[in-house]
């Protein structure tokens, strides 16, 4: 299946998660919550009031209708007047009874509203009273004998209450809005100040102050994890930059020495023009100088190759017991020559997977180191054993001067040479290579105190599928 270019994938246009959108969102959510609270309340209030009002109107109409049928128009007029008086001002109920001739008989309205005709069930209407429109709920009908009756209930009666509700709601909304805006601003400020801290620190780092770190967060801080991660990353970057600087300096230094010697030698040859035999001796020495430079380069290239991890593809089954035995046997004559006792204790099969060439070189470097530092009549003990199912331990221990504790971490760095090792042959890449080989095999190199001497322990992890089955 061909890979889709990322550009063709649907792009979600979500707003960015910035402090501003967070603040706006906070306000919006507050208002929505308020509306969800006020909406149903308002709805139930208004339907309830309307229903009660309609029921009242219906029962009034029914009652007055019965009265008229039983006692006649005069009684009805008297009842209406008793209920409403003659003025509609300040009263919620409006009534009007007019005779068949159109003349007012009773009620608190002066004339029949122009837009009301015939019979009607209770419904909301807008009628003109004394030149002013009023909202009313109204029912009217024609009684037997041509009398017309109108009963209405002013909607303005609950206006005050409704106004109080609305104002309350608005006040509430305003308060919520204000609190929300303040809260949002506060959140934004806190977030921006934190981001600001990060950006100030990184700006300083860009400017070259590599030792800068993000301020330590208070416990439970949302950004605690991020801060620790960023600081960890900065530690690593600083370490890498420094080690690159150190390596460059060391390369420059370590190469300059043989190159300077070489140059001097050649220059001397052209200036002094010594006899032939001497000239050839000088040329041989010059070739040795070049070989030293080449050796440093080769060691560096090999380290780079190991660190790139590409060699893992070439892992094959290896018996570490056998490999260690062969390395020990390889160096045994050198040890004998220097009257150093070199012992090896093989402990069964140590089957794993790895790069045999590199493992042999790493072990060889450790043994060469031990040979270099062990005193005359000294001891070197090599062991290879399995710690557990997934770990094999190769140890090379000598009784030389050892490495002081504060230098142990540094001696495995490239080109690091302890003061005590200056003047001995080597370019300071041996332990760095061992350490890189260990990392390639998902292991570590540990330097320990052998009291006296150095105990170099190479831990190598065994891939799960390389463990021989017990069957």
């Amino acid at each position, binding site marked *: 299946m061909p890979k889709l270019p990322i550009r063709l994938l649907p792009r979600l246009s979500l707003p960015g998660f910035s402090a501003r959108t967070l603040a706006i969102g906070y306000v919006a959510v507050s208002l929505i919550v308020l509306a969800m609270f006020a909406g149903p309340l308002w709805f139930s209030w208004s339907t309830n009031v309307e229903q009660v009002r309609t029921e009242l109107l219906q029962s009034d109409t029914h009652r007055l209708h019965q009265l008229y049928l039983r006692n006649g128009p005069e009684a009805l007029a008297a009842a209406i007047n008793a209920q409403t008086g003659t003025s509609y001002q300040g009263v919620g109920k409006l009534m009007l009874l007019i005779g068949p001739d159109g003349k007012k008989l009773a009620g608190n309205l002066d004339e029949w509203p122009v837009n009301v005709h015939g019979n009607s069930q209770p419904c909301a209407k807008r009628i003109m009273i004394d030149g002013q429109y009023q909202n009313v709920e109204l029912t009217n009908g024609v009684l037997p004998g041509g009398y017309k009756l109108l009963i209405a209930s002013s909607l303005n009666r609950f206006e005050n209450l409704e106004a109080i509700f609305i104002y309350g709601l608005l006040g509430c909304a305003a308060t919520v809005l204000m609190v929300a805006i303040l809260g949002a601003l506060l959140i934004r400020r806190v977030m921006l100040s934190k981001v600001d801290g990060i950006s100030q620190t990184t700006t300083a780092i860009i400017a070259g102050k590599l030792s800068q770190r993000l301020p330590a967060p208070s416990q439970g801080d949302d950004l605690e994890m991020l801060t620790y991660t960023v600081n960890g990353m900065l530690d690593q970057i600083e370490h890498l930059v420094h080690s690159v600087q150190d390596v460059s300096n060391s390369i420059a230094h370590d190469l300059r020495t043989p190159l300077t010697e070489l140059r001097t030698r050649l220059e001397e040859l052209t200036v002094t023009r010594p006899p032939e035999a001497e000239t050839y001796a000088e040329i041989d020495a010059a070739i040795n100088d070049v070989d030293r430079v080449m050796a440093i380069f080769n060691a560096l290239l090999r380290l780079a190759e190991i660190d790139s991890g590409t060699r893992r593809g070439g892992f094959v089954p290896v018996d570490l017991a056998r490999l260690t035995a062969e390395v020990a046997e390889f160096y045994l004559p050198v040890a004998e020559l220097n009257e150093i006792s070199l012992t090896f204790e093989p402990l069964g099969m140590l089957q794993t997977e790895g790069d045999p060439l590199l493992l042999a070189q790493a072990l060889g470097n450790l043994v060469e180191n031990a040979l*270099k530092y062990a005193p005359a009549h000294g001891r070197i003990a090599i062991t290879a054993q399995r710690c557990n199912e997934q770990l094999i331990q190769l140890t090379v221990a000598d009784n030389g001067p050892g490495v002081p504790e504060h230098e142990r971490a540094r001696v495995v760095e490239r080109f690091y040479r302890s003061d005590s090792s200056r003047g001995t*042959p*080597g370019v300071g890449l041996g332990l760095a290579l061992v350490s890189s080989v260990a990392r390639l095999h998902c292991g570590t190199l540990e330097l320990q105190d052998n009291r006296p001497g150095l105990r170099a322990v190479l831990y190598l992890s065994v891939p799960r599928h390389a463990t021989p089955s017990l069957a």
Partner: protein
Amino acid sequence: MKLLLVEDNERVSRFVIKGLSEAGHTVDHADNGRDGMYHAVSATYDAIIMDRLLPGGIDGLVIVETLRKSGNRVPILILSALDGVDDRIRGLKSGGDDYLIKPFAFGELLARLDALLRRSQEKSVETSLSLGGLTIDLLTHKVMRDGRQLALQPREFKLLEYLLRHANQVVTRTMLLENVWDYHFDPQTNVIDVHISKLRQKIDAGFPTQLLRTVRSAGYMLSDHA
């Protein structure tokens, strides 16, 4: 011996051709991949020295592969500045017989070339090797010199066997390291010299002629010539 050198660097070519001619070989030279391919397929050589990165659009390895596909079994020594182990493996897999990394010492090149030429001439399967009264039995691992049996460790036997197979020929320390121990690194100590001197103790001590000689700034040679 007639040799072909495919190498684009003029200085290196001149140096190698001069050295090989002095060693008694005839050398044809091609300085790009196209000419190299042409020479290699149109003439018969005893061995070819092939650089890897060549101008002319043809990689040295391509020439090697082409030769092998057409059934040509001429010994090929690959020269290369690419020194990763993977590069070495690729070079040998494509059909090269040996792989030498640049920069190299001329002695190393000559020694390896002689080993290649010798190997291509060996025909029968031997069961014993001998030189000037020294005989080793490849089946029983018995070592005799002038009728006296010598006791050798297994690794010493392997070392002696390699030297005998390349008798009267210089073998370098690197060749010994690679072929006897199968190690591909430079020991910082003189460990090879110590092994050689131990072997010398066993095979030469108490005999009038010294077979195992040190060749200055090159390596060692097992020889019965005076």
